[in-house]
Each structure stands twice: as structure tokens, then as C-alpha cells.
């Protein structure tokens, strides 16, 4: 499985062209697309997340790794569809109303994508009704970001809007951003808070597990 080793290495190092090349080579060698994704791209992004949490890699390195992963995923996508691959879950993500900061939000989206989640990126300055619509469109998780003390309070309005629409039971709400804390997450009625893009993946997996257990199959 030399192709898988080299694919992982290319993604971790952010070598976009090599990652794409190794993905194509893997497919040519007959490695299933799901294996290339699980043991190649996803394993690489998990390693990048670990290195980030260990303080060994930083935002630029994480961005180039994510970009390489995204390019390789584009190659795999038609094959994954053909193999009938399932996703880890569907996440609607956005920066809340009044706030245009999106680097943190984008990093979380990339890490989730690299861990098999389907992402509905709602962008920045996202109003509560847009999050509600995304749940109606099939999102199981709503992920909100805010950089500002002046906009983080808008997260409460989103949780309330989801409740008023009668959709709160079936969905996990997770939040993050520089001024956000666990206490604040509890105050606004979110299901989870993560302090960075890497721990966000684990947290989304956890809360999604809880929501699915509550909802039943």
C-alpha cells in the first residue's frame, strides 16, 4: 500500500500535486475509493489535527494540508458516489449574523470534510432563519462561529429560532470562536463547544452520536 503511505504524507505536508497524483495512482492500482479516503485522506487529516493540537503544525500548515486533501477528494468523489459511500453526517456551518470572520469557520469546515462529513457552508453574516432552513435541507448538526463579543450573543437567537421551528430535538448545535467558552455554550443552549478545528471534529462526532441515540434510527 505504498500509494496510501505516500498519499498520507503528501496531504500532511500540503503537497497538492503529489496528493492528487497519489490518489489517481491508488485508484489505478485498484484500491477502493473508500479505502483511499478512510486510510489516506482522513487518516492524514486526523494526523494533521493531532500535530496541530500538539503545537507541531500551525494555521498555514493546516491550510495547505486541507487544500491538498480537498483537491484529492475531488478526484475521489465520483468514485465514492459510484461505490455508494456513506458520509459521517451532514453539518451546516456558518459565521453568525453581523460577523464576517471566516478563517476559523473555514478551518473547522475543512477538518470536518477531511473526516468524512458533508458540509453545507452557509458563509458569513448568517441569519437565524438561514440556519433553520439548512436543518430542513437535511443538516443533522448546526455549527456556528463568532469572533466577536458583540456577535456571539447572536448564537442564542439561532438556538431559539431552531426551537421555535420545532427542530431542536433532532439536531446538534455546536459553537466555537475566540470569545466562546463552555459556560457560554451552556448558557445559550448549545450541545457542545470546541476550542479549535481539531477538537471540533471529535466534539461533533460525540454530540452527533448523542443526537442519533436520542432520535433512534
Amino acid at each position, binding site marked *: 500500500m505504498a500509494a496510501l503511505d505516500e498519499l498520507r504524507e503528501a496531504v500532511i505536508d500540503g503537497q497538492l500535486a503529489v496528493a492528487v497524483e497519489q490518489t489517481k495512482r491508488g485508484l489505478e492500482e485498484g484500491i477502493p475509493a473508500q479505502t483511499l479516503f478512510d486510510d489516506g485522506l482522513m487518516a492524514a487529516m486526523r494526523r494533521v489535527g493531532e500535530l496541530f493540537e500538539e*503545537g507541531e503544525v500551525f494555521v498555514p500548515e493546516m*491550510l495547505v494540508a486541507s487544500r491538498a486533501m480537498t483537491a484529492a477528494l475531488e478526484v475521489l468523489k465520483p468514485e465514492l458516489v459510484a461505490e455508494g459511500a456513506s458520509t459521517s453526517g451532514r453539518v451546516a456551518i456558518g459565521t453568525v449574523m453581523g460577523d464576517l470572520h471566516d478563517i476559523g469557520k473555514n478551518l473547522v469546515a475543512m477538518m470536518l470534510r477531511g473526516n468524512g462529513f458533508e458540509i453545507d457552508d452557509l458563509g458569513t453574516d448568517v441569519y437565524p432563519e438561514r440556519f433553520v432552513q439548512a436543518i430542513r435541507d437535511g443538516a443533522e448538526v448546526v455549527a456556528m462561529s463568532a469572533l*466577536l*463579543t458583540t456577535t456571539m450573543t447572536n448564537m442564542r437567537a439561532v438556538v431559539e429560532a431552531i426551537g421555535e421551528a420545532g427542530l431542536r430535538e433532532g439536531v446538534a448545535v455546536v459553537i466555537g470562536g475566540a470569545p466562546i*467558552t463552555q459556560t457560554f455554550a451552556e448558557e445559550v443552549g448549545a450541545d457542545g463547544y470546541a476550542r479549535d478545528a481539531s477538537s471540533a471534529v471529535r466534539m461533533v462526532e460525540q454530540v452527533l452520536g448523542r443526537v442519533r441515540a436520542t432520535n433512534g434510527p
Partner: protein
Amino acid sequence: MSGARTSNANAALSAGARRGTSSRERVEFALAHQEADRVPLDLGGGLVTGMHVRSVYLLRQAIGLDPPGTPVKVIEPYQMLGEIGPDLMDALGVDVVGVGRPTNMYGFRNDNWKRWSAFNGTPLLVPGDFPTDPERNGDILMYPCADRSAPACARMPKTGLYFDSIIRQDPIDEEHLDAAANLEEFAPISDEAVEHIRAEVARLLPSGRAILADFGGMGFGDVALVPGPTLRHPRGIRDLEEWYMSLVSRPQYVYEVFDRQAEIALANLARIHAAIGDGVTAVFVTGADFGTQEGPLISPKTYRTLFKPFHVRVNDWIHANTGWKTFIHSCGSIWRLLDDIVDAGFDALNPVQTSAANMDPRQLKQAYGDRVTFWGGGIDTQQVLPFGTREEIRAMVRDRMRVFGPGGGFVFNPIHNIQAGVPVENLLALYGAVEEFRGYPIGDPAA
């Protein structure tokens, strides 16, 4: 490098001047790591040490400086900072005043003031070229140099409190990338701009306050400036994620941009210094953020290889040729970078984000307090100031005075600009506590 740093300020200060010092001397004492009569206070000396206009309005009203409905000037349109006028400075005991270039972040002048109302009906004065007509969706778009024929460069969302850059990124042609494309905004300073700075320094010197000058052009890789907000059609690398990636994927390109930018900046500094001499106390060098809430944004190696050489070059030039002190702003958790940042020769560090990971005030003071002045760190603006009680605010101010104050090396300033939405009672509690606890001698009971 330490030899260069013990400059004129020390020599000029006699021990006898310690009591009854002027504002300017108070800041000079702090920067020379000596105790004056009290800890100096900055509010609005720089574009990262000020206050959102909504909060300035409420504070002025609460202190009784203006009749209700009196508008406040927006002196910085990007972050919508309000003017900290001489009357407010006197009321709070502010020791620092700012000087900058004649045009603002978006390349137009702050003049021809007009009335406007925003942020829950706050009465404002904005520059004549400031766009006040919203788009259909309620957003306000900003244009570079107020040129509406160019693509908009910034947006304030309908419910927002300030602007953020609109990214204008042409497709990147890797083969033909030329550093000149990222240097368009860095140019020899005009005679008019030098004269503006000279006149401003001359006007403000008699106030007795310390001048914090922002001459521009030295913010290597500051992502507030990378998108080219003054440029009609920015070229090169202008997308922020692309820029961050370039630090590891195109380091040669970034190095060349910084190298040529430094050359231009030093030539400009020489002309400015020839015009104003040593009237300025400190110079804002760079505001590029190197930290996130949890840790460094970039690796220590990236700082050391790409940024530090240019920080050293600027600091060394200023210390060798002027009596100015140098000032760096970087948000976030930068503990792992501080050995290098301090070693690069900065005299003052801002905003000292003690609310970020590994930024314990006592550890910072102990490790770097003899070499760098903490210009910030006075109050946490993410939790305590906007959401805390008055007693929590008072306790934090007392603690920070006790930790950072002893031996000088502290200019009291909140962590970055004070935002809108802070209860005015909390602002009054903040400045009440500053007044209560800023007097020397100060001891740290925990030390």
C-alpha cells in the same frame, strides 16, 4: 541590542522629575523601566488602543461632557473608532495621543465631516467620503479611496459594528508571480504627508502628552492590510487564506515582499525623522497578529525566518537613528514566540492578550518585564469588561496594576480596542479603578 534600547529617555530623566511629571515623561519613565508618579494610561493613542464610537458616545454622556445627542467623530472607519478628544483625555487622565498619516485605512481624508446615525441611533460625525447609503440588503460598502468606479473593498453588515475586508483576488499565476504586485501600496511618502505629520506633531507637543505615531508601511504581513484596502484593483496575493498558505508554500515570495517593503519604510522613516526629530515618544511598527486564542498562528520557525529579520531591521534603524521607542501589536497567545519578538528589539508589546492560552500576566512580567514594556493587558475585553460585574472589573484592574506596574514597564491599556456593547457602568468602573490603583508605589502581594 540592549545597548541601543537605553536611549535618550533614560538620560533625559532625572530622579527629581519623578513627582509631578508630565504625561509625556510618565510614558518615557515607563518605557525606561522606571516608576513615575503613577502608571501612564493610553486610550486612543493608536488604532488598536481605542474605543468603538458607540462606547465613546455613551461614556461621554455618562461623564457629562456633552449635552444628549451630541455626535462623536469616527476617526477610524475600519473599526469605527470614536475620537478620544482632549476633554475626555483630561477627564480620564489619559497620557498618550496619536499621530498618523493624512489619509485613513481606506485612503481618504478624515475631513468634511457630516452627520450620520448608526448603532441604535448613536449620533455620529463621519468623513465626507464615508459611504452612509446602505445597499438593498442593509450592508454598507466601502470603496478604495472613495472611488465608486472600483470594486468595493470592505463591507459593514446590516447588524455589524464595523467593516471587514472584501477579498479581491485575481487568479494566481504561479509562474509569473512578481513581488511588485504585493508592494503597490508601499511607496515613498509624499511631501504632503510628511508635512501633515510635522504639523500634527507640532500641534500636539504642547499638550504635554506622549505621542504614539503610526507612520504606516511597516506592518509586514498584517492581514488587515494584505487585502489592499486602499487599492482599486489589488494584484498579487490578497486572499487571506492564500496569504497564510504562502508563508509555508511561497516563502521566497513573501521574503522578497517584506525585503522591499522594509527598504521603502526605512527611507520614509528617514524623511519623517528629518522633519519631526525626536518629538514622538513611540512608533507603531506592526500590528500583524501572530497568535490565536489557543496558541501561535504561525510556527516559531516561520516567525524567525520570515518576520523577525525585518522587525530587527526596523527596530535597529529606529534605535540607531532616532530617540523613538518601538511598539508591536499582536493579538493572541504568543508565549512561544516571545523570546524572538522581544529579542527583535521591540520596546513595547501590545495588547498583551492575557485572556489567551499561556499568557499569564505574572509569568509575562517575570520573563520579559525587564526588557519590554507591557502596553496593554490592563483588562480582559472578551469576558470581564463586557460581561463582568463592577467589582470583578475593579479587582482585575487592581491585580494588573500590581503585576505589571512595579518597576515601570507598564502603560495601562485594555486588551485591544474597547468594543460596542460594553455597559457604560462597566466603563466607568474601569476608569474609576484605573484612577484608584495607578499611583506608585505599587507592590505585588503575590510576588
